[in-house]
């Protein structure tokens, strides 16, 4: 089965005054046609940077995609010319950003922001594009769409703006949607509405989704496979059920244990992961989770491991888990 997207050994660094920040370090993942995968991790772990690297939206300088390949539908996006990349971005790969307030243009009407993509990528005439924009707005649940298309973003609530973002994302019928914390700024009931809608719309389009989030619950609801990131690297990945029920990395285990669950009896005390996420500038050799890890061995601090398959399709980079498996 050929994957729709294959990210191979992608490394992206930022060159700052204080030093080199290795935001994404040798990250690989795959998305099949129509599949939903999740990138999970805390802020600063490189989830967003890896998505921006796929879209080639890393500001250069200070950033730079140091190495790797992003093979989409058979072509390496990192080798495309700027003009060719324009034809991919927004058309065949779309992105939904976290902040609907800052990612919409405040001085263009909502309608115009949708028709722009339609005119550029689908070669539509202005009037046809407007009709299509109204149809898309209706599709994402905006009432009185024809009238609202003339409004500016600040006339819309946060949830409404994110609906508009989704309308823009699906406007050119992309094969892949990168959804970067699509509902983080929103309330739970609105979040549920939007995710259901996004899920159904992409199913109709047969599009794949890379869901980037720190919310383990949302991932459990939608993703078939999960990649867990920590300090710029993927530390574990596998089928969602396996990662949740039998995590193979102490970080994943810690994350799952630290969030209270509504379906379980209330515990007296939460089990946090002690310590802080590391500073990416001062990253030492060895496993980045070593200082916070309860199962660490002295070797972990010296040398980090590459991902190894421990169960079908389930990979980990944890030395002590691997030892346990071999025993």
């Amino acid at each position, binding site marked *: 089965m050929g994957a729709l997207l294959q990210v191979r050994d992608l490394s992206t660094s930022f060159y700052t005054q204080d030093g080199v920040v290795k935001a994404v370090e040798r990250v690989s993942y795959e998305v099949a046609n129509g599949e939903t995968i999740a990138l999970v991790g*805390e*802020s600063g772990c490189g989830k967003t940077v890896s998505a921006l690297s796929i879209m080639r939206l890393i500001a250069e300088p200070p950033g730079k995609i140091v190495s790797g390949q992003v093979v989409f539908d058979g072509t390496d996006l990192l080798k495309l010319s700027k003009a060719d990349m324009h034809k991919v971005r927004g058309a065949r790969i779309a992105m939904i950003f976290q902040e609907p307030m800052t990612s919409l243009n405040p001085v263009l009407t909502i309608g115009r922001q949708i028709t722009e993509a339609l005119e550029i990528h689908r070669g539509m005439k202005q009037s046809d594009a407007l009709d299509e924009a109204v149809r898309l707005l209706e599709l994402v649940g905006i*009432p009185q769409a024809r009238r609202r298309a003339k409004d500016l973003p600040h006339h819309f*609530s*946060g*949830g*409404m703006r994110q609906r508009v973002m989704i309308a823009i994302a699906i406007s050119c019928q992309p094969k892949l949607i990168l959804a970067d914390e699509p509902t983080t700024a929103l*309330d*739970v*009931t*609105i*979040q*549920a*509405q939007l995710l*259901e809608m996004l899920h159904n719309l992409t199913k109709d389009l047969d599009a794949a989704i890379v869901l980037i989030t*720190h*919310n*383990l*619950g*949302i*991932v*459990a*609801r939608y*993703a078939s496979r999960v990649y867990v990131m920590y300090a710029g690297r993927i530390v574990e990945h596998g089928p*969602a*059920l396996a990662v*949740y*029920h039998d995590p193979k990395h102490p970080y994943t285990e*810690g*994350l*799952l244990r*630290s*969030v*209270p*669950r*509504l*379906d379980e009896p*209330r*515990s007296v*005390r*939460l*089990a*946090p*992961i*002690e310590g*802080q*996420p590391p500073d990416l500038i001062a990253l030492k050799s060895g496993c980045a989770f070593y200082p916070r890890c309860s199962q660490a061995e002295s070797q972990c601090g010296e040398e980090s491991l590459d991902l190894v398959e421990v169960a079908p399709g389930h990979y980990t980079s944890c030395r002590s888990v691997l030892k346990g498996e071999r025993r």
Partner: protein
Amino acid sequence: MKSGNLLEIKNLKMYFPVTSGLLLSRKVAQVKAADDVSFSIRKGETLGLVGESGCGKTTIGKCILQLHRPTSGEILFEGMDLCKLSNNELRPLRQRLQVIFQDPYESLDPRFTAADIIGEPLKIHGIARRRAYRERVEELLDIVGLAPYMVNRYPHEFSGGQRQRLGIARALSLNPSFIVCDEPISALDVSIQAQIINLLDDLQQKFHITYLFISHDLSVVRHISDRVAVMYVGKMVEIADRDELYKAPLHPYTQALLSAVPIPDPAVEAQRSVIVLKGEASSPLNPPTGCVFHPRCFRVFEPCATVIPALVDKGGGHFVACHLYDSAYSSSQAAAN
């Protein structure tokens, strides 16, 4: 006033005027951020307050602290109506009513050191000087799990979780009996959130503090609260003991809210059905007639659009404001089922 209640909020209304015009500004509308809200907070408990953003949770917290002077209503703290007190009379009481803010990046003065931030309340209220002051600051750092050598650091030298610890130390400095925790963990990373929740738990036991815990994270609220209150567009729609509310939510909004919380387990999620509400929350600028929730409610029937439901005790301190549970409409309610 019932014994055991630290705070009693009665018919609290907080309307913010919307003005128009540059020089001669006139009131053109009002935002009903809190509209006729009544509830009480028992001594030593944690009351969780949940609801969507903009529903008036923070406004309630600020009214209790008298950071907003309410439009009308009473806020009884140990029997005293805070709304009737002058600023001078309030000052000694402010020592006992403290707050922890949501964003530890914005709520700490970037030009103050850790010692200044924690110690400022001590200076203002003239509690401790010189050696006693230094000792108290170091003691507070220790209580919240920060090291003494950090006293001269500035906020930017701390991580998010550590900053929130500073905010907590500042709130504790005057030995308060009540703290409003306004989304204290929502700006923090998942792995840090549990650390702060445990700290708040410990402090409550150690110093017998009463919390009003404002949050939109229902899983965390269940973990930390003894009782839970649910707000929607300026109105209190349901209050109950924690286990009761999560086991048997009465208000359709609470039911939808709980069903929308995703559970971090794919096997469980595959079995669950989510109540997906229609539309968005109404604006407190122009709230709907009748029940504020009726435009989105999946069990709406005749009286909902016209009659405002009262918050009534359905037994055992489980309060709900919904016509479904009103015997006057019980026949039509059966029809709606």
